[in-house]
């Protein structure tokens, strides 16, 4: 039976980052990944000779080379990467498009500020006060952190339309809870999206994942693919034995799981007193490959967060999909010095997992096709006459998310309940990744680092002040 210092469940961004920290400090560490490839929620695949990304729209928390502050700079130091290793290229500019009004933003916060000032003259001072408060806010263990962001933001900003427009991108890029989020998360996401900004590597998420895996292996870490955890046996409030899908057994002093809170508990023999809630929010995403760059077709926005109804609704829809709001991502519209190999448009919208699950198999494909057509209609508002340019397409549903990530209910952002400190009811089982509470590319990696530092490397005093500094993205 193999024995390790630490077992990490899941070879996504958080698991790989945790693995690098532990392997660097000579821990005997093994990452177990159920799937045939790495990445988890942020992965990649090839289809019809083309490279596709899963998850990644844009990396948030962008800071340029040379910046020493901010989550990206801190992350690079913790993982010992050079800025160039992630090869992040900033966005051209993004947009929040609501009925009759839109706000543009770039990686220069002043532009967003002037857009808000122009569109909402009565809110000028209020918006400035809110952004100043958020800029300074770094107390995620404080009293405000766990309170309703909507009720706190309402104390600063009066216009419900502006409030909805601020919440829309934040919820689409990391809202695990319906209707609201806590103020701590609102603050880190506001910073990561509006005050820092978006970027992308030219080759997508591969660029980051391949560097992580290479480093992990160079440091002596072991990565096992097709190695799902079937169950974990518990003895004296500790995980004593890990049984894999193929029946083989492993022991480890500690387990870090990035599989999700509900999903990890499902592997454990002994349950906590209270059962946590699984997430409810899932998505569909349609991807169209075009034979022309979107800029030539008249759209230069990098990401567009749209909403068509009077009130922005962040909730599980009643139907298969809710097309009244969503995200259009145009990966070509970043400041690359050479064009991407393919021109693509991706559209994401909220979906109802149960509706998709209950579809008879014979109807599933037709529903998928019809939903693809519905969400792609939206693109026509931003890129006129683009449809004839479509040369290939793909689509994921909540069922696809569940199949490839193992997330209950296909809930991309996991449980509405987060475990900021990563602890569970078992003494040697810890959570990292989505349900620790940092979502997105930089957030996920930071989560792995923080949990590895705190619970394995034993540097307990490091983490509290770090929590607040981490941003979030998709």
């Amino acid at each position, binding site marked *: 039976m193999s024995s390790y210092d630490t077992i990490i469940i899941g070879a996504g961004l958080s698991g790989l980052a945790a693995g690098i920290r532990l392997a660097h*400090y000579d821990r005997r560490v093994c990452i177990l990944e159920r799937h045939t490839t790495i990445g988890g929620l942020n992965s990649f695949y090839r289809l019809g000779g083309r490279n596709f990304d899963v998850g990644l729209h844009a990396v948030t928390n962008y800071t340029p080379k040379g910046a020493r502050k901010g989550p990206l700079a801190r992350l*690079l130091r913790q993982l010992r990467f050079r800025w160039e290793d992630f090869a992040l290229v900033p966005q051209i500019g993004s947009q929040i498009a609501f009925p009759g009004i839109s706000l543009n933003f770039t990686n220069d916060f002043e532009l967003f500020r002037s857009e808000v000032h122009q569109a909402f003259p009565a809110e000028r001072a209020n918006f400035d006060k809110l952004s100043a408060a958020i800029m300074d806010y770094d107390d995620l263990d404080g009293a405000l952190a766990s309170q309703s962001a909507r009720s706190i933001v309402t104390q600063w900003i009066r216009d419900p339309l502006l409030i909805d427009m601020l919440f829309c991108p934040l919820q689409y890029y990391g809202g695990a809870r319906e209707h609201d989020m806590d103020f701590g998360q609102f603050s880190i996401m506001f910073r990561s999206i509006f005050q820092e900004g978006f970027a992308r590597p030219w080759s997508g998420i591969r660029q980051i994942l391949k560097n992580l895996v290479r480093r992990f292996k160079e440091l002596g870490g072991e990565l096992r693919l097709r190695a799902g955890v079937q169950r974990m046996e518990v003895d004296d409030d500790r995980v004593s034995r890990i049984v894999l899908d193929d029946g083989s057994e492993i022991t480890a002093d500690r387990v870090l799981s990035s599989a999700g809170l509900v999903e990890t508990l499902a592997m454990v023999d002994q349950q906590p007193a209270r059962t946590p809630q699984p997430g409810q929010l899932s998505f569909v995403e349609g991807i169209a490959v075009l034979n022309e760059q979107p800029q030539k077709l008249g759209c230069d926005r990098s990401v567009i967060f749209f909403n068509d109804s009077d009130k922005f609704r962040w909730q599980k829809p009643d139907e298969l999909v809710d097309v009244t709001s969503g995200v259009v991502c145009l990966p070509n519209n970043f400041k690359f010095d050479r064009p991407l190999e393919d021109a693509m448009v991706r559209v994401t919208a909220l979906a109802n997992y149960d509706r998709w699950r209950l579809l008879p198999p014979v109807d599933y494909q037709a529903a998928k096709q019809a939903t693809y057509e519905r969400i792609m209609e939206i693109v026509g508002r931003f890129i006129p006459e683009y449809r004839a340019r479509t040369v290939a397409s793909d689509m994921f549903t909540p069922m696809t998310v569940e199949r490839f990530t193992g997330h209950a209910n296909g809930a991309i952002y996991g449980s509405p309940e987060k475990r900021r400190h990563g602890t569970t009811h078992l003494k040697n089982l810890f959570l990292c990744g989505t349900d620790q509470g940092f979502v997105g590319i930089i957030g996920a990696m930071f989560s792995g680092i923080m949990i590895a530092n705190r619970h394995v490397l034993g540097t307990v005093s*490091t983490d509290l*002040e*770090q929590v607040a500094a981490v941003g979030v993205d998709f």
Partner: protein
Amino acid sequence: MGPAEIKETILDILEGIAPDEDLSGLKDDVPLREQLELDSMDFLDIVMELRKRYRVQIPEDDYLELATMNSTVNYLTPLMKDLEKV
């Protein structure tokens, strides 16, 4: 090793932690935190690197001794005088 070699060791550790930094202009008497924006996670990495490479244990109460290059070298000199540089 003596103070000069200890300083080289610290520079080597800093270069590993922040590969993008040009350390040639580093001032020995100005806090590292100020010059490189190092945070507490980075200071812990310096501590852990010293433990990993030289088995030098630095108790948490002494972390403040690592504020500047000079204070770090002064603090480490008695602890590392019998060690060979690797």
